[in-house]
C-alpha cells in the first residue's frame, strides 16, 4: 500500500535490536501505565466529592485547660444556641471528631450482628453527635428516622440506645439489599438499635478507595475539657466572617480556652493529601517518560545514522523524502507494536500484583489502551526527529565511499 521496500523482513534479520528495543518499550509500557493509573486514581480520589457539604462547613475545637472547671454540658448547649444566632450561620452541631481529618481524636469500634460474638466483626469509626449533626454535615437520610432529643445520652452517665449508620456500614453488616432499620447490633457488651441509614461520605479518616463505615451515636461529650462545634453557613464566602465572630464569642466565654481546628472543611481536604507519595510517583513518571523519549529517540537516531549510506542509496534508487521518512517511522512503529503488546500483558500482571498487595484497584483495559496509545504516539514522535533527519540525507551519499 505504501510502495516501500519491505520493512518487516530486514527487522527479522536484526532480532537482537528488535528484542532489546521491544523489551524496553514493554517495560516502559508496564511501568508508565501503572504509575499513571495510580496517579490518576489518587487524583480522582482527591477531586471526588466528600459526600458532605464541605463548602459550607466550619469545624472548631475549644479546649479548656484541665484544672479549670471544664466545659459543662449546659455551657456547651448554651454555646450552640449563641453561635447559631451569629449572622451567616445556618446550623450548629456538636461532634466529637473533625470530619475529613485523619489524625486527630479518632475513635473506632466494631459491631457484631448477633450476641454470640462468633461471626465476623465489622469495624467502623464512631462519632458521638448532637441530634442535628447529620443535617448540619449534609448527609442524606436514606432510610429510617433522624435522631431526636429523647435519644440523647451523656458520656459516663448513660449510654445511647440507638445508632445511625452510613450505607457502607449497613452493607457490610447486612448485605447489599437488606433493610438495616430496626436491626440490633452488638459491640462488646452493649447493644444498639439501628434507626437510620445515611448516605456515604469520605469520613473522619479518609482512606483511598473506601467510603468510611461510620456509626453515629446520639451522645453529648462532657469530658476532657473539649467541645467541638460543627457550623454550617449560608455561603462559602461568609465563613471567614463567621470564624472571627465565633472566635470572639468563645474567647470571651473562656478566656483561658484554646481554639484550634478552626478550619474551613474544604481546606482540610488539602491537608490529608499524601503529597510525599504523589510527588515521588510524579517524579518517577516524569523521569521515566523523559528517559524513554530520549532512549527511543536515541536508538532511532543511531539506527538512521548507522545506515546513512544505505538510506542515500535508497534515495538514489528513487525513494522520495516522504517515502524514506515513512519507512523509518514504519520500522519504528513495527518494533513499538511488538513491545507494546508485550508491555500491555506485563502491565496487567503488575497491576494484578499491586491489586493484591495494596488497595489500588486493578488497571482498567480502557485506561491501559489509552496509555498504550499515548506511549505509541510518544515513541513515534521520538522517532520522528531522526526520521526527518533521514529525509535530509542527500542521495549523492550513494556514490561516496564512506
Amino acid at each position, binding site marked *: 500500500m505504501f510502495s516501500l521496500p519491505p520493512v518487516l523482513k530486514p527487522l527479522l534479520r536484526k532480532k*537482537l*535490536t528488535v528484542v*532489546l*528495543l521491544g*523489551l*524496553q518499550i514493554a*517495560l*516502559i509500557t*508496564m*511501568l508508565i501505565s501503572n*504509575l499513571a493509573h495510580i496517579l490518576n486514581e489518587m487524583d480522582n480520589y482527591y477531586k471526588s466529592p466528600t459526600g458532605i457539604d464541605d463548602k459550607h462547613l466550619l469545624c472548631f*475545637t475549644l*479546649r479548656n*485547660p*484541665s*484544672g*479549670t472547671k471544664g466545659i459543662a454540658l449546659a455551657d456547651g448547649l448554651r454555646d450552640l444556641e449563641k453561635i447559631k444566632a451569629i449572622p451567616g450561620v445556618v446550623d450548629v452541631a456538636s461532634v466529637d471528631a473533625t470530619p475529613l*481529618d485523619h*489524625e*486527630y481524636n479518632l475513635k473506632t469500634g466494631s459491631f457484631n450482628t448477633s450476641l454470640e*460474638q462468633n461471626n465476623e466483626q465489622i469495624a467502623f469509626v464512631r462519632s458521638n453527635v448532637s441530634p442535628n449533626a447529620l443535617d448540619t454535615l449534609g448527609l442524606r437520610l436514606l432510610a429510617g428516622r433522624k435522631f431526636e432529643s429523647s435519644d440523647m445520652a451523656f*458520656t*459516663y*452517665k448513660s449510654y445511647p440506645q440507638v445508632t445511625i449508620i452510613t450505607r457502607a456500614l449497613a452493607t457490610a453488616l447486612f448485605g447489599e439489599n437488606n433493610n438495616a432499620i430496626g436491626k440490633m447490633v452488638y459491640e*462488646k*457488651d452493649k447493644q444498639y438499635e439501628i434507626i437510620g441509614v445515611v448516605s456515604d461520605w469520605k469520613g473522619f479518616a479518609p482512606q483511598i478507595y473506601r467510603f468510611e463505615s461510620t456509626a453515629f451515636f446520639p451522645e453529648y461529650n462532657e*469530658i*476532657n475539657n473539649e467541645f467541638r462545634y460543627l457550623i454550617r453557613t449560608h455561603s462559602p464566602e461568609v465563613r471567614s466572617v463567621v470564624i472571627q465572630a465565633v472566635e470572639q464569642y468563645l474567647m470571651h466565654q473562656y478566656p*483561658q480556652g*484554646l481554639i*484550634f*481546628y*478552626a*478550619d474551613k472543611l474544604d481546606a482540610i481536604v*488539602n*491537608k490529608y*493529601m499524601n*503529597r*510525599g507519595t504523589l*510527588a*515521588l510517583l510524579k*517524579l*518517577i513518571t516524569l*523521569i*521515566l517518560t*523523559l*528517559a*524513554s523519549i*530520549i*532512549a527511543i529517540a*536515541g*536508538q532511532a*537516531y*543511531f*539506527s538512521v545514522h*548507522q545506515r546513512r549510506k544505505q538510506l542515500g542509496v535508497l534515495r538514489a534508487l528513487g525513494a522520495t523524502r516522504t517515502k524514506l521518512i515513512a519507512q523509518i517511522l514504519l520500522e519504528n512503529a513495527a518494533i513499538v507494536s511488538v513491545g507494546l503488546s508485550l508491555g500491555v500483558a506485563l502491565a496487567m500482571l503488575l497491576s494484578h500484583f*499491586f491489586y493484591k*498487595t*495494596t488497595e489500588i484497584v486493578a488497571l482498567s483495559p480502557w485506561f491501559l489502551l489509552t496509555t498504550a496509545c499515548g506511549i505509541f504516539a510518544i515513541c513515534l514522535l521520538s522517532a520522528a526527529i531522526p526520521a526527518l533527519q533521514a529525509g535530509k540525507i542527500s542521495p549523492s551519499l550513494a556514490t561516496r*565511499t564512506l
Partner: protein
Amino acid sequence: MFWYQYQLALRSIRKTPILSCVMIFILATGVAVTTICYTHYHHLKKNPLAHKDEHLFLLQTDSWDEKTQYERTPNHLPPLHSYRDSVALLASDIPLRKTAITKWGGSMHNPEIQQKAIFVRGNIVTRDFFAMFEREFIYGGAWNAIADQQFQNVIILNEDVNQKLFSGDNSIGKSVMYENIQYQVVGVTKKVQHSNPTYDIAQFRWPQPDAQFYIPFSVIKAAEFGAWTRYECPQDLRDYGSHWYQPRLINSCIWIGLWYEFAGEEQKHQFENFVRNYIQDQKKAGNYPRPIRFALSSIGDYMQLNQQGYDEDKTTIYIGFFTLLVCTLNFVALLLAKFMRALPESGVRRALGANRRVIFAQHLIESTTLGSIAAVLGMLMTFAGLLYLQLVWKSAPAPSSGLPVQDNTVLMEPDFYLMTVCVLTAIAASICAGLYPAWRACKVPAANYLKIQ
C-alpha cells in the same frame, strides 16, 4: 596496557559525543530512580539504636481476651499494658533501667509573658527514659529519682518548645503552665529526628514526631489526664465504676508501653522469671485469662518480627528495579550499535596482533568508563531528586492545631550508604551491559573488515 586501553576507550567515547551523552544520561537516570525509590526503605530499615539491641527490650504480655487473641501486632501480643500491670511490672528492681511511655497533649504557655498558649504533645515517662533512648540535653538533665515515685511538678521541654516559650534561652528553673498546672523546667532536650519510631516500634512502622515535652510517670495518679495514645480494652465484664478517669487506673484497658534495659543476659533471665511469676499471680485475681505468654524484644528483634510490614514498602523498589532494567537494556542496545560501528577498527587491531581478550577488555573498559561517568551524574540526580522530594514534603500545610507532624524528610535524606549503592549499581549495570556487546566485538574475525566494504 590498561592505560593504553583506557585511553582508547576515552577516545572512542569522545568520538561519538551525542551517543555517549545519551548513554550516560539514560544509565544515570536509571540508577537515580532506583536509588530514590530505595531511599525510604533504607531509612525505615535503619535501627538508630542497634548498638543497644543486646540490652534494651520492649515488654509485651498477653493480657488479651480469653477467647480472641490480639490481632494488631505480628506476634499477637498487645503492644501496651494497663496502668495496673504497668505499675506492678515497673516495681521490679531487677532491670538496670526501666521506663513506661504514654502520651499526652494539651495547651502550654509561659506565665511570664502574655502570649497565646500553644498546643503541644508530649511523653509521660520515667527518668530512665533519657538514658535508655539516648536523649541528649541542651540544658539541665533528667529529673531526680524521687519524682518517679512521688509526683513533682517538673517538666522537660524539647528544643522547639523551648524556642517558642523562651526564645531558646536556658529555661532551667523557670515555670511553664501546662493544662493550667504550673511545672518547673528541669531540662531541655536536643531535637532528634529518627527515621525509625524507636520506642513506638510496636505501634508504628513509620517515624513519629519528636515529643515536645516529658512529664514524670507519677503524674498519672496525681492528675486526671486523657491519654493520647491507642486505648484498647479486652473483654472484661467487671465493673470499674463510671467515672471517666478513675477506672483507667484499675481496669484492663491498655495504653502504656514498657521498656527495660538489662546489664546482661543473667539480669534479663531473672526479669523473665519475675514477669512469669507476676502473670501467674495475676491469674488468681482473674486477670491474664490466656495462657502465659510474653516477649522481650529489642528494636532490632521487633523489626525482624515485622518484616512483612516492611515488605509492603517494597513496591517502589520494584518500580525502581524495572526502571533500571529499562535503562540498562537501552544502554546495551546503544553500546551494541556503537561497537558494531567500530568493528572495522577492531578488525584492524586484531590483524595488528591484538588477541580477543585485549579487544574484549578494551570494550568492557569503555562501557565501565561510561558507567562511572553515569554513576557520578546519577549521584547528582539522586541528590537533586531527594532534595526536591524533601521540599515537597516540607511544603505540606501544617495542621491548624499547631501540633508537629512527622517530618518525613528524614526518610528522603541522602547518605553515604545510598551514594555507594548508587555508584555501585551504575558500575555493575554498565559491566553487565557491556559483556555481550564486548563479546560480539571481540568475536569479529580479523580478516572480515580489512577489505573495503
